Structure formats: C-alpha cells, structure tokens
C-alpha cells in the first residue's frame, strides 16, 4: 500500500515537472482500470527513469473509461481489466479507431473476509448465493450467527464485470449488497467490518484473509495455470499497432521484459509466461 502511494506520488510529481518542462519530446497518456493502475504506474515510473524526456500520465477511472478514452482518442493506452465489449469495438470502429489488445498480466479475483472470520473456503455456487441474497448469515456456512455484510465493487468497474460474468452466472445481485468505488475501499471496509465479505484483485490482500474458492487458494500459480476459478487477463489497449522504435512501442512491450515481469510480480499480479 505504502509503495503504491509512493509510486503514485512519484508519478504525479514527475508528471508535474514534465508538464513544465518544455523539452519533453514524447508524451504517453494512460487512462482506465483501477486494477491495472498499479502496474501502469510502476511501468511509468520505471520507464520515465530510463527515459527522462518521456512524460507518462496515468489516470484511474475504471475500465469503461479506459475504453471510452481510446474511442475518443483522449489517451494513448487504455487500461482495462476486461476485454472490450463488441459494442465498444463497434463505436471505436465508427470513430475510426482500431483498438489493439495487449494482454499484459493475469489477475485473480480473491474473495476476502475479516481476519477473525473462521471460514476457510467457499464454492462458486455458495459465493453466488451470498451475492444474490440466498445465503444471508454466516451460520448457513458453518460460521457464527451473524448477518453477512456483502460488499461489491460498483457496477462501473471491470472487477465487478469480471465477478459478475465468472461468478454470478447471469443472476442479479441482491438489493442489500453494498457498493464501493475501488479495490482499496473494499479492502478497507472488509478490514474494519467483522462480518463482511468482498472481492478484490490479488494486489489488495494485505491484512485481510482470502478464502479458497472451489478448494483452490488464489495464488500466482493457480491464477496462471487457471485452476483458480476466478482469474482473468489484464489488458492494455492502443489505437492501432504502435510503430516499432517509438516510446509507445517500447512502453507497451515492457510487460514482456524481465524487468517488466518483476514489476508486475511486485505489484501483486501474475506476469505472463
């Protein structure tokens, strides 16, 4: 957490300095998923250190906004934690943009509870029943007799959409489910709420207890080999294929380098092989 804060401060400060620096000859603007955000920021920090004349800005406003920015042409790289929908691809085509997909890492969505919660694991079906309101108390899962505080990401996030497609199986969430605006906020809520359950990316597990899903613990290996049931790729989208030799090309291919893989692992995600 502290590292993320430090990183983002560095990015912000460097960004500011660069904004005043008239000699900055190349600029990369990134927008989109809060899940991909930590990777993007670390990449930006690393790349700007190596190439001081490049200015990289990272905004985090949700996967939907990432797609929107690519379609509108307001960013160079759209970070997304879900693939582009066909409707988004269509409106990109309509506005003359050819979005190119780069899978940069794998992410598992971990189901988290308060550290004092005795629960060990759930099945996907149980998880679905918790979120659609059929299971209301921890007692029904063999825990203490207290109401489950169900916390979800807001419907604006890629994490929500991934969870909805991979767990909910077209069923609707119960009306009592609480929605929060970021992965960090879910972690914060679960950390301070004894009876809470939530779901976050693998980078947000500090301090909370993650549960087994279908008897598989979320980890780098289980996510990479896809035995963990709720895992997904993370994407960066560019407008067309970046030209070889440009900063954009070098930057977008960072994830394939050893250094890039190390950064991805450091931020808590799983690098591609």
């Amino acid at each position, binding site marked *: 957490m502290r590292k993320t804060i430090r990183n983002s401060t560095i990015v912000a400060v460097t960004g500011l300095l660069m904004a005043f620096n008239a000699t900055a000859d190349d600029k990369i603007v990134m927008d989109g998923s809060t899940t991909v955000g930590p990777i993007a920021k670390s990449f930006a920090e690393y790349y700007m250190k190596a190439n001081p004349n490049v200015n990289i800005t990272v905004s985090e*406003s*949700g996967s*939907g*906004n990432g*797609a*929107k920015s690519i*379609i*509108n042409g307001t960013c160079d790289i759209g970070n997304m934690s879900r693939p582009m929908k066909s*409707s*988004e691809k269509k*409106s990109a085509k309509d506005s003359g943009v050819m979005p190119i997909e780069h899978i940069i890492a794998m992410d598992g969505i971990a189901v988290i509870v308060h550290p004092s919660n005795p629960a060990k694991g759930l099945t996907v079906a149980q998880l679905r029943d918790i979120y659609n309101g059929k299971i209301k108390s921890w007692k029904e899962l063999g825990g203490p007799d*207290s*109401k489950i*505080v169900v916390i979800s990401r*807001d*419907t*604006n*996030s890629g994490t*929500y*959409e991934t969870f*909805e497609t991979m767990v909910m199986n*077209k069923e*609707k*969430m119960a*009306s*009592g*489910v*609480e*929605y*929060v*605006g970021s992965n960090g*906020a879910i972690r*914060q*809520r679960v950390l*301070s*709420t*004894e*009876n*809470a359950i939530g779901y976050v990316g693998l980078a947000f597990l500090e301090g909370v207890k993650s549960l087994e899903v279908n008897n598989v613990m979320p980890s780098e290996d289980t996510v990479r080999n896809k035995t963990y049931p709720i895992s997904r790729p993370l994407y960066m989208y560019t407008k067309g294929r970046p030209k070889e030799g440009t900063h954009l090309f070098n930057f977008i291919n960072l994830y394939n380098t050893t250094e890039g893989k190390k950064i991805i692992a450091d931020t808590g995600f799983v690098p591609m092989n």
Partner: protein
Amino acid sequence: MNSSEKKHYAKNLVLEKKTQKINKVLTTTGTGILFIVTSLSTLVILFMLFFIARDALPFFKSQGFREFFTSTKWYPSSDNPEFGALAIFFGTGIVTLGSTFVAVPLGISAAVCLSDILPFSARQVTKPVIEILAAIPSVAYGFFALVVFAPLLQNNGGYILKIAFWVISIPLFAILITVAIDVMTDKIENHLRMAARWILGIVLGGTALFLLIKAGLFLDSLKITSGTNALNVSIILGIMALPTVVSVSEDALQSVGRELREGSYALGATRAETILLTVIPAASSGIAAAVILGIMRAIGETMVVWMASGNASQIPVPWYNLLEPVRTLTATIAGDMGEADHVTGSARYHVLFAMALSLLVISLICNLITERIITNTRRKISS
C-alpha cells in the same frame, strides 16, 4: 469668480447635443454589459435545465415513467436492464430526513444561543468557528465517515447510540418535567403546592428514568452489522448542513431587533419566554428558510454518500431502519457515469439524466419556496 470659470461651469452643466448623445450611448452600453453579465448566471441555469432535460427525455420516451418511479429493481448494467429508481429516491429522502433531524434542532439551538444567550465577545469567536465547518471539503467528511465513523459504529454502535440518546434526552426530559410540574401545580392552593410538586416530581422523574434506562438497554443491545449506513451519512450530512442552518437562522434572529425583546421584558416575560414566545416566532420565516437551505445542502451532497452510505439500492425493512445501507440519487449519478457515457444513446446513460432532472426539479422547488418565504418575511418586517 471670474468670467472664464463661469463659462466653464455653464459648459459642463448644459451639455451639447453631441455630448448628450455620447453619454446616452455610454449609459446604454454600460447597462447592457451589466445586464448580460447578470443574465449569464440565469442563462446557465436555463441551459443546464435544457441540456439535462434533453438527455433525460429519451429515457422517459423509451422506458416510460412507471418503472422508474415505482420499481425498486435497479440493475442498469445487466443484460436485460431494470431501471427502478424508487429505492434510490427513497434513499435520498431518508438520508435527507435523517440529516434534517440532526441539523435542525442542533442548528436552531446553536443560533438561539449565539444570538440571545452568549455574550457578544463569545459569539464573535464561536460563529466563525461554526462557519469553518462549511469550508471543509466534502471528501474529507466522506473519508472521516468511511474510515473513522463507520468502524466506530460497527464496533461500539449500540453504546454510542445509548450515550447519544441520553445526552439528548436527559436535559430534554428535565425541562419537560419542570415545565409540566409548574403547569400542573399552578392551580393548587399554596400550602399544598410544595407537597404536590414533590410527589409529581418523584412520579414523573421515576417514569422518565425508567424510560431512559429501558431505551438505553434496547439501544445498547443493537448490533450494527454495517457501519456504512443511512445513520452514518445522516449524521455527517447533518453536521455539514449545520453551518448553513446556524448562520442563516442566526441572522434571522438578529434581525428581530432590540425593541421586540425589550418590549417583551417590559411586559414581565423571562428570558426563556422572550426567546420562545417572541423572538423565535418573529424570526420563524427566516428560520424556515435556513432549514430549507440546510435540506438542500444535504440533498445535493455526493461525495459523502458515495463513500459512506453503502450504496445498496434497497428500501430497508422497516422503512425507518436507519442502520441499513441505502443508495442516493447523487451517488448513483456519480458512480454510474463512468461506465454509462461511452455508449451514448443507451437507456443506462439517459436514466442518469432523468435522475439529475428529478434532483434539479426538487432543488428548484425548494429554492422557490425559500425565496417565497424570504419575501414574505421582508414584507412582514417592513409593514
């Protein structure tokens, strides 16, 4: 005065035709510019209404009014979306009501205290401090509500509620009992009055104590499962609305004037009687305006409710259960905007404008009422 000076004055006083014309043009342009600047702010409101309505109408055209205003099923992102906003309207309502219950009694008592009870020097210090509350950014309130207040409510919710209840009701009961005893023993003959007062005091005090303990035990046993709920935001929003209520109603109380207060004292009224029966009624329309302004502050607030209300679009059972999470119009608009607007033309995008339009209409109505009340007061004071 020599002749040349005389001539100079004459020249300036009786203007030539040409100068007159120029002056006229200048006056008109000046007035025109001022008029344009003033009407710009009015135009902004009109433009906002126009553009929001323009994007809201397609929603009502395609989905009709019924589902939006009567259903509680809010699933804007699913494959067959449902846009029932009743629970969200309810959430806005209950949170506003709750914050009114916090802000109004506190705000009016504080205003009375500032204007009629505290010495002038203390008021000069206290009022600016209360007004600082309005300068704190709402995200800071939201952060406090989410990180400090919500866990506090979860861990010691019942205890906090009990203490708060006692702090509020013990003085209230004490005042009520004193007044009740005074009123009831008024007609009794002198030699019996003392005894009657004692008996009544013991009976009423005992009942009050019993009620207080009973209610305290009940509140203590409450378990708040989720700290991000309607109660949490009601209290925080109440505190946020406080400076508006205090400031405006204090101004109203101040404008009542010395002569009314002195007249009341001259007729033999005590300070409490003067405040309750003369000053507050005289300032009542100003206080009402303060209350409505405070309510509008609470309705329009976004960041705090988005962070700390839980955002669950449900009508709690029973409806007055403030310990359940709720979702408000403002939070829904803020939270859903990002995903919705790249697919322009979709109902999911337009429904947010329908909500914005409803909010705008509600606050315009509130504003008109306030305006009405304030004009009425002015008329009353001047007549």
